[in-house]
């Protein structure tokens, strides 16, 4: 232990020496780094001289500083040839030191597969997560990134960030508050580009105010307390914020272009509106879309920059190392370790699977990693020279069974809103049977709830009514629908047979199987139920119009229910069990909107409290109260905790954890530092 520790000490000293030398306010970056187990067991050769030289420099500050940072060989060649400034000038004064479990070496190509137009998340999750602040790898705190430090006012309305000085875009232009100001004034506040400002940037119905205090200090001011702002900034919500290089974006922005030049550019590109061109080349207001990957050499803060861009006809997208990337490892080696990325663009999943099984994909946890394909990938592990790692699903359940509490038919609505009825239905399901048959024994019986491993775990929420007990089921159902017809099916108060259709997206084969089994169990207790699988667009459309009886869908919120509480109270139209109440919550003027009952309103009010709490601990405490209210209300049914997912990584790829949390809010695998992956 002593040896690695001394390394860390040295690098800390180096940093201090450097920051002091540059006459800036010292922020000991290393101190705020996540304390991942420090285990650089191998002695990385190139780092050795650096460390000792740096140690001397720290002891004798009068001597000219020795090279503190080292770089990839291909960059060193360019420096030697005079094409690039030396690494010290390219790095910021205070680069972000990210300690990697294993000190890596430079080189190699990382091959992956992605699927066309809407799959920008394939890039984002691997390399696009460069935000003001980020999630720690364990997803329990927020750590500095492009922002070195921040202050939050006591009422959670003012957020002041100090930017890391001297960070440069991949073309060498400095990244400053001006870029963020451009993002705010010319993207977010431009009504043509952003027709309605994203919800996370508003509070109390007003858009956040942005202020540039100096080149390296910015301030966000909300009208009402917004305690979730930092979490939102660390999540994919904030994708666009640090992704708009002003000097590049002005070439495509109507405000900064002469009308005739703009017209000529649009004519040439075939665009009907300048906003289409801006979205295609720069960024979309919410950060989604292919803008950041559509132009070769587009300035970026990512670890890799685009070499061959994505376009509708691309069959592959390649990215090469960003020479100005602003992070270093504990030995002062500039990240990233891997030279180049190649994303193949695939029309369908089987051909991608074949590539993976043949060892032609180096690391991936997307598209082909279904339960059904696991056997194939397992069989070919040796031949393809890869290993399988686990994904801990952050989803709250494998199947969220949502009965429509705001059904258009008043009779149905009254029945479904009756908690006894939902309890009865829950008791009627043999969850273990489903787990054994559909999920090959993976997972345990559970309602939609925060996972045991999260701080939000609530046993009542997770476990209530999950035992299989037909007698209890009938007892509860008899309280609501006691009358049956000759065939044993329960009748509604108006004498018709009570019928419920469970709609399921046909692409989710496991949920279709589960739905059929649920229908069978419900029939056994006199509920005429039918599982109907259909195209998911159809299902979504019917859901959005409040036309469903019931639907099955997966659920987020198992790890961080604050960010995605959809299964605990109706907060948006993903809460398919109460679309009308959710509509009221988001916009009371919506034609679908209906005022929810008092106990649901109480949860909505509680969530407002969560949002206005300033500290994480307070937020957790409030959210736990909300989850207890949700447990008592019991809005939707679940089957089991989500079965473990998996991904594949080449055997010689280092710094890949054995288990990674899988979620969109924590854009897996980015927070585990993909720039530190390397080939041994």
């Amino acid at each position: 232990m002593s040896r690695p520790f001394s390394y860390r000490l040295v690098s800390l000293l180096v940093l201090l020496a450097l920051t002091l030398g540059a006459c800036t306010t010292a922020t000991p970056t290393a101190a705020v780094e996540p304390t991942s187990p420090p285990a650089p067991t191998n002695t990385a050769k190139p780092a050795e001289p650096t460390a000792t030289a740096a140690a001397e420099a720290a002891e004798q500050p009068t001597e000219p500083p020795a090279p503190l940072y080292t770089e990839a060989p291909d960059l060193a060649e360019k420096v030697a040839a005079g094409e690039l400034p030396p690494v010290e000038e390219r790095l910021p004064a205070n680069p972000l030191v990210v300690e990697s479990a294993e000190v890596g070496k430079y080189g190699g190509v990382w091959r992956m597969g992605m699927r066309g137009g809407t799959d920008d998340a394939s890039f984002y999750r691997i390399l696009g997560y460069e935000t003001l602040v980020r999630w720690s790898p364990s997803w329990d705190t927020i750590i500095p990134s492009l922002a070195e430090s921040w202050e939050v006012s006591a009422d959670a309305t003012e957020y002041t960030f100090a930017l890391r000085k001297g960070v440069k875009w991949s073309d060498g232009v400095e990244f400053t508050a001006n870029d963020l100001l451009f993002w705010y004034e010319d993207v977010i506040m431009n009504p043509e580009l952003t027709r309605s400002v994203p919800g996370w940037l508003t509070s109390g119905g007003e858009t956040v105010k942005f202020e540039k205090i100096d080149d390296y200090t910015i301030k966000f001011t909300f009208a009402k307390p917004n305690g979730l702002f930092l979490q939102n900034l660390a999540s994919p919500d904030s994708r666009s914020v640090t992704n708009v290089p002003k000097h590049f974006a002005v070439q495509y922005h109507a405000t900064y272009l002469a009308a005739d030049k703009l017209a000529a550019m649009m004519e040439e590109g075939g665009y009907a509106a300048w906003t289409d061109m801006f979205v295609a080349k720069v960024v979309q207001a919410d950060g989604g879309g292919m803008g950041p990957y559509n132009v070769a050499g587009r300035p970026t803060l990512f670890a890799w920059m685009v070499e061959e861009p994505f376009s509708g006809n691309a069959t592959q997208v390649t990215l090469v190392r960003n020479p100005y990337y602003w992070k270093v490892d504990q030995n002062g080696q500039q990240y990233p370790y891997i030279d180049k990325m190649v994303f193949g663009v695939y029309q369908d999943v089987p051909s991608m699977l074949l590539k993976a099984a043949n060892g032609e994909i180096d690391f991936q946890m997307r598209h082909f990693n279904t339960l059904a394909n696991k056997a194939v990938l397992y069989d070919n592990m040796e031949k393809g020279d890869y290993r399988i790692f686990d994904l801990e699903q952050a989803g709250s359940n494998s199947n969220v069974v949502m009965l429509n509490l705001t059904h258009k038919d008043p009779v149905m609505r009254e029945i479904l809103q009756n908690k006894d009825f939902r309890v009865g239905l829950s008791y009627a399901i043999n969850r273990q049977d489903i787990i054994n048959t559909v999920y090959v024994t993976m997972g345990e019986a559970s309602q939609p709830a925060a996972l045991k491993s999260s701080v939000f775990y609530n046993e009542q929420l997770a476990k209530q009514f999950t035992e299989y007990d037909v007698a209890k089921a009938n007892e509860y159902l008899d309280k609501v629908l006691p009358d049956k017809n000759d065939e044993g099916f329960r009748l509604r108060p108006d004498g018709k047979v009570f019928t419920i259709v469970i709609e399921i997206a046909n692409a989710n084969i496991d949920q279709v199987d589960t739905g059929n089994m649920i229908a069978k169990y419900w029939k056994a207790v006199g509920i005429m139920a039918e599982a109907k699988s259909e195209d998911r667009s159809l299902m979504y459309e019917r859901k959005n119009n409040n036309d469903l009886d019931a639907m099955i869908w997966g659920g987020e919120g198992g790890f961080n229910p604050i960010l995605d509480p959809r299964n605990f109270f109706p907060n948006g139209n993903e809460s398919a069990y109460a679309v009308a109440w959710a509509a009221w919550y988001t916009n009371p003027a919506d034609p679908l909107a209906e005022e929810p009952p008092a106990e649901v309103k109480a949860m909505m009010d509680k969530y407002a409290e969560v949002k206005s709490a300033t500290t994480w601990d307070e937020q957790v405490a409030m959210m736990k109260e909300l989850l207890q209210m949700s447990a008592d209300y019991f809005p939707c049914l679940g089957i089991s905790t989500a079965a473990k997912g998996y991904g594949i990584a080449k055997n010689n790829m280092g710094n890949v954890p054995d288990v990674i949390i899988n979620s969109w809010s924590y854009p897996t695998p980015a927070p585990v530092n993909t720039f530190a992956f390397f080939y041994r």
Partner: protein
Amino acid sequence: MLSFIFRRILAMIPTLFLASIVAFVIIQLPPGDFATSYMANLAAMGDTVSQDTLENLREAYGLDQPVMIQYYKWITGIIFRGDYGLSFEHREPVSSLIWDRIWLTMWLSLVSVLLTWIIAFPIGIYSAVKQYSAGDYIFTLIGFIGVSVPAFLVALVLMYLQFKYLGQTTSGLFSDEYISAAWSWARVKDLLAHLWLPALILGLSGTAELIRILRANLLDELRRPYVITARAKGLPEWKAILKYPVRLALNPFVSTLGWILPGLISGSIILSQVMNLPTTGPLLLRSLQSQDMYLAGSMILVLSVATVLGTFVSDILLALLDPRIRYQ
């Protein structure tokens, strides 16, 4: 003849107009719109999109307007400005997406048609001339398999065998180093090296069909008295077969020649999907799935134009061959 051509051209205009309406309306028929399927698609991949973004999309793309207005904007754009609209999914103009792919698709189809003909003609003639011989039976068997087994299945089986025994994975039309290279002689050679397998698979059912048709037609002709007369007069056997009966047996191909054009664009959809070929097929399929209506509509429109043009060409060829049609 000229008035015949003129009449045919006149008839094409309302056909194309109707086709464009049908193309556009069909895409609107499935429930939901691009925004819905975009949201559902992202949700299925574990990503989410905010409600604001969807509203932004709907407004920006005019999805909230009535169908007739959307159609009017689209069709006038095409007629007056050559603007096929914007692909929602790719955020790129449709015209910049489809032409590259049409080019590659044409190559694939051309090679496939040539291979089909090169294989089918000799075998068809052989089968007819040596009816009920061992060779005829073997080719008949292969022919039936070719007609009945879908091309994509053959592709899957071949891909699996290649993976299992050769440790190779073929997908795409180029080797890795040529994927993004500029066109050069080496790249053309690389393309041809990759093209023959999909072209062969694509041509499989066509080849089988062609063999069957050629054999049947030729058998009819070979029994005609003029062939017997020719033989009796001592005409060499190859001339007695090739010069007249084969030419007559080819007649049906002329009328189906027109179908090759739309086949160029739509054929091979599933095969391209399976073999990961950058042709128009997968783009069309994907655009239909994601309800990317301007892209899908434009491709269907191009397809309709190709069909109408193809039919026009074969009508003219038939008219040239058969005077009765001309004077109707």
